């Protein structure tokens, strides 16, 4: 230590030079410093984009986010109607809520100043409290940075060239690992359960799969759907249309996850062991069910569990109805369906096969013999195409083709088939025809994106070499002298915007008439129910409106003893609605009979 260190005493005084410099102080509030481009300030929520999935509320470790009802927001399909409200007395601005927001509606803004003497005023409804926040968004998530997993685990499937060789299942379905990964994408928001006609407990069973508890998943599925595996393979899965993830990415493969879960049980015995249902003591009441379609089977299964004596009357050799006969086997193998039906039989459901009501047994007998009757007859009768020559040989409806093929027959299609229609049945018809060795063309009036069929089905068809001719209107089937189909005449159409704001209509282009040589024409433009089995008196006692049985909310017809469900009631022509009808009818029948 130097006793007198002149340098060390003098050098610090160089600091005094700073006196001449302008201060670098940010003279807030007179001069504000712009916050950074990704500053994490107060929340902003785009109320229109938000679907109220509540994922932000779940991820928030501070439990700062509540989902609340807002006046201006109504719940609808795919929107819970709730919106997040942030308790700024809890928030730590970690922005995890932004990172997990599947729609990207929740963001943080550059505003951060909120000062008040009132401690109770820190509840902040983003988007309502700061409507101007939209211009101020700073921290946000896009598809790349978001923590939502937008990419679906790819589903392995047979190659198109392989597929057309046989009726083997085209989808190979998830392995355990893939299923866990796919299931873990789900954010458990439950928006899907609302649009599911059967309101299956989707988030729960997916969560069970994600946690590796497949058995519990099966039990949850069997809570209100006894045909889980069938649904897993062929359901129209409206749930996936409202999946929170599909806003910015791929929906969770709900259907395939269900297939995965129930598919774990390879036999009916295993299924019974896993589901291990609680079968109640017989209560002595008898219920008769017309038709072993999805709605009938569902009704039968749950009634049987509740101790009813249930008998199904089925016209065909196998149970399943349209599911059995209307869906090609490469989508739904017979073993799979039989396994599920065997399981139902094992818990006491009785099915009388080859018993056509109205022919082998009268409806009256059934009515009298049972305490209640459930009618689940479905749509068997196809609509006609309504063009000239449709009664020609080689022109037939797709359902008939499917029925024949599924019954083991191999109809002669010729080498060139035209399928008319754009629904799933049309695609099925086309793909079946392809497997029978024909060249297939699908004619549809509108554009491909307008086709009501599943995009997966359309893609599958294309992979298999089916040609799709959109905006094509068939006008005439040209027959040869033996009244055999020879060619089809069609018009090209252009899409014209609808003045009333509806979807664009196809309008034929004058002079675009073309003739195509074909060997068969398959119509697939819809079906209707056949009530010929019902005697007049019953037909009068229940109300039938435009081919549809009218029921109340409990699936009860005007005749209190007769319940109905399925396609013939709801006209949606999908299995899950039929199952939902059946499930609802169970409760109604129980209430009707037990009180």
């Amino acid at each position, binding site marked *: *230590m*130097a006793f007198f*260190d002149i*340098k*060390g*005493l003098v*050098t*610090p005084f*160089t*600091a005094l030079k*700073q006196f001449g410099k302008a201060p*670098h102080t940010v003279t807030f509030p007179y001069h504000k410093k712009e*916050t*950074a*481009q*990704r*500053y*994490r300030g107060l929340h902003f929520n785009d109320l229109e984009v938000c679907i109220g999935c509540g994922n932000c509320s*779940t*991820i928030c*470790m501070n439990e700062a986010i509540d989902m609340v009802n807002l006046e201006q927001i109504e719940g609808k399909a795919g929107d819970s109607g709730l919106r997040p409200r942030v308790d700024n007395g809890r928030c*730590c*601005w*970690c*922005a*995890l809520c932004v*990172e*997990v927001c599947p729609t990207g509606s929740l963001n*943080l803004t550059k505003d951060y100043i909120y000062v008040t003497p009132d401690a109770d005023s820190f509840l902040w409804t983003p988007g309502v409290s700061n409507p101007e926040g939209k211009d101020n968004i*700073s*921290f946000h998530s896009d598809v790349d*940075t978001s*923590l*939502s*997993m937008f990419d679906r685990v790819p589903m392995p499937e047979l190659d198109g060239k392989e597929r057309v060789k046989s009726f083997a299942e085209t989808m190979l379905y998830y392995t355990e690992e893939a299923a866990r*990964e796919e*299931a*873990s*994408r*789900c*954010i*458990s928001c439950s928006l899907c359960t609302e649009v599911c006609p059967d309101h299956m407990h989707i988030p729960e069973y997916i*969560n069970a799969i*994600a*946690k590796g508890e497949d058995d519990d998943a099966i039990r949850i599925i069997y809570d209100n759907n006894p045909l889980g595996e069938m649904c897993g393979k062929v359901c129209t899965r409206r749930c996936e249309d409202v999946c929170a993830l599909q806003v910015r990415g791929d929906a969770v493969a709900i259907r395939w996850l269900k297939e995965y879960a129930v598919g774990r049980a390879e036999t009916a015995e295993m299924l019974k062991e896993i589901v291990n249902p609680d079968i109640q003591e017989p209560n002595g009441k008898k219920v008769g069910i017309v038709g072993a379609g999805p709605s009938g089977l569902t009704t039968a299964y749950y009634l049987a569990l509740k101790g009813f004596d249930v008998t199904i009357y089925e016209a065909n050799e196998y149970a399943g109805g349209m599911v059995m006969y209307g869906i090609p086997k490469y989508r739904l193998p017979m073993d799979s369906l039989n396994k599920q039906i065997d399981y139902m039989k094992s818990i006491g459901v009785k099915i009388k096969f080859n018993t056509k009501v109205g022919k082998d047994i009268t409806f009256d007998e059934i009515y009298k013999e049972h305490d209640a009757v459930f009618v689940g007859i479905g749509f068997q009768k196809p609509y006609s195409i309504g063009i000239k020559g449709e009664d020609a040989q080689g022109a037939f409806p797709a359902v008939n083709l499917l029925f024949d093929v599924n019954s083991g027959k191999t109809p002669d299609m010729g080498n060139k088939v035209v399928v008319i229609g754009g629904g799933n049945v049309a695609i099925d018809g086309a793909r079946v025809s392809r497997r029978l060795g024909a060249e297939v063309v699908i004619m549809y009036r509108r554009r491909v994106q307008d086709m009501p069929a599943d995009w997966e089905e359309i893609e599958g068809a294309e992979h298999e070499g089916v040609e799709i001719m959109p905006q094509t209107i068939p006008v005439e089937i040209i027959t040869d002298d033996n009244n055999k189909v020879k060619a089809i005449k069609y018009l090209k159409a252009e899409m014209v915007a609808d003045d009333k704001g509806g979807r664009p209509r196809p309008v034929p282009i004058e002079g675009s008439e073309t003739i195509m040589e074909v060997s068969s024409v398959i119509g697939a433009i819809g079906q209707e129910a056949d009530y010929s089995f019902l005697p007049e008196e019953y037909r009068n006692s229940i109300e039938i409106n435009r081919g549809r049985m009218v029921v109340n909310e409990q699936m009860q017809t005007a005749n209190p003893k007769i319940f109905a469900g399925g396609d013939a009631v709801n006209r949606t022509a999908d299995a899950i609605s039929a199952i939902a009808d059946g499930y609802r009818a169970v409760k109604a029948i129980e209430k009707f009979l037990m009180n």
Partner: protein
Amino acid sequence: MREKATTLYLGPQHPGITGNMMIKLKVEGDTVVKAQTHVGYLHRGFEKLMERRNWLQSFTIVCRICVPEPDPNELNYSRAVEEIEGREVPERAEWIRTLMMELSRLASYLLWFGGQNGSAGLYTMPQWSVGDRDYILDLFEELTGGRVYHMYIWPGGVRRDLPNGFTDRVLQTMDYLEKRLKQYDQLMFENTIFQRRAQGIGWIDPAKAVEWGVVGPPLRAAGFKSDVRIDDPYLIYDQLDFEVPTQQGSDVWARALVRRTEFQQSINMVRQIIDKMPGGPVYNKIPNPMKWTIPAGDAYVKAESARGEFGYYVVSDGSNKPRRVHVKGPAYVHGVTLLENILEGANISDVSFIMNSLGTCPPEIER
């Protein structure tokens, strides 16, 4: 002459205390005869909180464990999780993490420059250095969206890529800091009075230092070339060119010099990082955070913070929440046993001064 001993409570409310803690001093005249640290004023039970939070949620709270320097916490937590899970981190993310670590070291040293001189009564220095620290906070804000709590380094990488033009602004700030460092030198390191205050004060016996658990700048000031960045290399420190400065004095002055040299080293390292940073993704995406589970296992990871070795012991039981996250901050030893020990015989004037030189930070002691 033996004076009557009085008891002096330094803290918790006291301008000279770092953070919120208390030292109970038994004083004879101006000399401390016994010191006892009392902590717990900032105890929040982090480890308990994390039992209720899942792996991702926990990442947002770890940065609160050490307020002046949150980034080593985020880094350690993320590295521990990655080690247990076996998750790969993209190379660019590692570089950005290193950049964060060095910037945070700079910020922490600037705060320390202020604290050390504030406790010595040179109030111009905190005004300068804490003001300058704000420029680094501005960089953090631009990069991470937060000034103090960045919540930026997370398992799998970092949250966002560098914004446009960010590297230029980092380099500008480094130039500015280098210029200011000369002024700091003139005001502080070349100041006779500061030297007289600091020399020979707060001596740690170098023969015992390692055994006593001294880490970081105090250990290097005792002559040990000990630095986690070299001893147990992590991130991309093995690709950077830097030296570990040591001093022999083992007193406050030696520690100050070590920090002074490291400050310059960090500026150089930031420049190297900016220079060499590779491209590529910054984030290996984790699964849906609500359903993200980590296989059972444990890991002890450590990083060199501005105050020394920062360790995290993380245990997973295979569920979606951590079983145990136990944090070891450098202050855990510095602030309790070591401080109590070297304060004995010190002058009261030097208590706060010595405490600052050790980098005591109570929130990481009690968490």
